[in-house]
């Protein structure tokens, strides 16, 4: 049966727009069911704010099933809050207790400018994918899907990296604001597969260099892996680094030939 938490204090970042300074505001939630999700608690607070004639708190969210990657939030300083391998939308109030004080902030990273309140702009991620996070395969000419057998361990490893939901927790958790986990997860997914070989080195070069335009550098803190709701391993960063080095050497040879 559901229990109720009482006397929750929320310190929430409010910022009216990209150019506003922003500040923390404190809200009290007197009672909430422990079956409620964290975002349902914010819905409940927003309903109250609207009833009181105040503007609702803006936050990004959509599927509430932990797969679309829209939700964000630093909860008590942790990206997606205290539960491991869990996006904010799947976090439930049963992880908290009566009397708790909870600080809620937007993703903190220079590459993700704040739009309003708790919402940030993550379009730099799209720029990385646009630069090379794909396999060029125009519609129409694909050969039969079973033509190239892919060993199960390879397909599984590609899938492990492909699970990334693009939420940006890795960047928010990183002291350097680096996007190496996000970028390398896509590189690993595509570079592991036979279909991805044709563009392997071109891809890694383009993606890493686009990433560097927006994000900080990786210094192997490993915070990204701990924050990732899909538990993507930082091994993918090593894989991408290895491919990037090879790409640089290969391309230098090619340049010399021309």
């Amino acid at each position, binding site marked *: 049966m559901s229990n109720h938490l009482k006397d929750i204090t929320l310190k929430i970042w409010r910022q009216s727009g990209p150019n506003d300074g922003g500040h923390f505001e404190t809200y009290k939630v007197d009672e909430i069911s422990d079956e409620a999700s964290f975002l349902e608690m914010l819905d409940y607070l927003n*309903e109250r704010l609207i009833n009181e004639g105040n503007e609702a708190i803006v936050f990004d969210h959509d599927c*509430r099933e932990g797969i679309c990657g829209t939700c964000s939030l630093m909860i008590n300083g942790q990206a997606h809050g205290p539960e491991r391998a869990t996006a904010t939308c799947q976090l439930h109030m049963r992880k908290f207790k009566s009397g708790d004080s909870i600080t809620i902030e937007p993703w903190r990273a220079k590459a993700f400018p704040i739009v*309003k309140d708790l919402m940030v702009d993550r379009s730099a991620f*799209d720029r990385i994918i646009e630069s090379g996070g794909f*396999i060029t395969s125009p*519609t129409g000419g694909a050969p*039969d899907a079973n033509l190239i057998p892919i060993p199960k361990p390879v397909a599984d490893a590609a899938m492990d990296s492909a699970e990334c939901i693009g939420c940006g927790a890795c960047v928010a958790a990183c002291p350097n604001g680096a996007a190496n986990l996000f970028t390398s997860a896509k590189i690993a997914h595509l570079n592991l597969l036979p279909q991805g070989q044709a563009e392997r080195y071109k891809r890694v070069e383009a993606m890493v260099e686009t990433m560097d335009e927006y994000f900080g550098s990786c210094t192997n803190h490993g915070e990204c892996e701990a924050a990732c709701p899909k538990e993507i391993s930082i091994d993918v960063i090593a894989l991408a680094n290895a491919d990037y080095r090879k790409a640089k050497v290969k391309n230098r040879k090619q340049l010399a030939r021309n």
Partner: protein
Amino acid sequence: MSVELNAKNPAGSLSDKWENYKADVKLVNPNNKRKFKVIVVGTGLAGASAAATLAELGYQVDAFTFHDSPRRAHSIAAQGGINAAKNYQGDGDSVHRLFYDTIKGGDFRARESNVHRLAEVSVNIIDQMVAQGVPFAREYGGLLDNRSFGGAQVSRTFYARGQTGQQLLLGAYQQLARQIGLGGVRLFNRTELVDVVTIEGRAAGIVVRDLMTGEITSHSAHAVVLATGGYGNVFFLSTNAMACNVTAAWRAHRKGAYFANPCYTQIHPTCIPQSDEFQSKLTLMSESLRNDGRVWVPKNPDEARPVDQIPEEDRDYYLERLYPSYGNLAPRDISSRAAKRAVDRGQGVGPLKNGVYLDFSDAINRLGKSVVEERYGNLFDMYERIAGENPYDVPMRIYPASHYTMGGLWVDYELMTTIPGLYAAGEANFSDHGANRLGASALMQGLADGYFVLPYTIGNYLAPMLNKPIPGTDHPEFKAAESAARERFTGYLNVKGTRSPDWFHREVGKIIWDYCGMERTQQGLEKALSELPALYDEFKKDLRVTGDGESLNQTLEKAGRVDDFFQLGMLMCRDALDRNESCGGHFRAEYQTDEGEALRDDDNFCHVAAWEWTGDPMSAKRNVEELNYETVHLATRSYK
């Protein structure tokens, strides 16, 4: 003025129609394609695949999404898989069998020609997605693995763990991203459609609202594609994402596009039951779980023993009992009603007695925990996070919830609505699933429409328009639509009542769920049709939207969407009331067999109801497209 509903079915036998169509279709020379501009609204499977493919062909494409990134579209949440008639398992599958299963699953209320084409191109989809690097599950030999889904007796479902929708959408998104990078597609993110504009009877473009600034602007094009998903959120509680809405389709409807079969909604049997009054949405547990999970309830409504101490003889495995040949894999509509009846009889389980068990203990004993974990691990984890119980130890509790809408904008064989130049693709159209969709067929349809149908059919419309300029966005029709939209949004802000958009949404949802949900009656629908207009009046008088219209305002966005849900809800109930039969997801209690199964009336209702806007959803005009079955013999659907 009413439009004649011409499905434009191509000549020839069913299996020749698509080939014949392609042989006759008008083409646009590669060098001329860049002279045409196409707008694609929505970037889910249908929208992203259409936008990417049209751009590859050389058309100028403008793509719109209200999300921050195209990758957020709700296709991403599909779990179980995608069907294709590959027959890789050699278990008797074929294009014809997938076609027939889909027609039968839809309770003989879909158009034969469209469904057959869907089955034909299903095989191309798998090839295309594998070429793009979608990491489908594989056997140890390296070939693709399949599983079985409801309503089929073959294994034709391809899957990527429990995240097939995610992997397919990311594939389509990456293909779209490549085109964005190359300049073939211009992307407008965080931009929501607020109106469709027609000039001289043709689609001329759209009016959009920039969600960041509230600015309302127009975009014109030679053709417009709506790939904006379904309207399942009309129920408030559904498995849809929070932002899913009917606005694009509804605004098109108000501009002359007929809305077909709005009462055909799918209630998915396996969702996590509601746990409290704050619930904002319901979470689906993939249908694939029914491959290995067994559905049961205690025979005794007053059962008090813990679940693991209820002996076999006191359990009612009601799906296996009622439908022995399909068992736990009976189609969704049938499984959902069976669950509702069990709960209504008082046999429900869980603290609120509002669920049935989905039990994996037999599968764990037979296959071992590690196999079950490999197949469903992420779903089990998700269940535990939400319900707070471990499904390896305790059976899952599930209950039906709104999940998918088969109804949508009426389209012909070319996926064109009744407005020339306006197309609808994916869940936004009505065409392929009849009165009930089979599992793993939504992903198939979205990708079929976007990759393999629209790129052919749009050319047929565009070819004769070569060198004809598109109307400028300063045309009076655009200006009128812009000011109407501005007025509408300012209007929401100016009501200054006492209730939030969410409050109204919840109330509409309750009415629709109670009277136009899993079981409908004449009396209930009439009640809904008297309550909805009254509540809608209250919405107009008592809505409260805080904040302003010149910056990001999620409350204001929501108000616009709820407005359209009200109007759609009325049309749904009217459609359900006028369809005096039961078929698929539309179950009218008055029309059932002695055994409680849906009783169709093929003499009077073997048709599509396509509703025409007349200024008020309560007085919409019902038009009919007769369904002529040339190949399939109409039969009573039996899964026994």
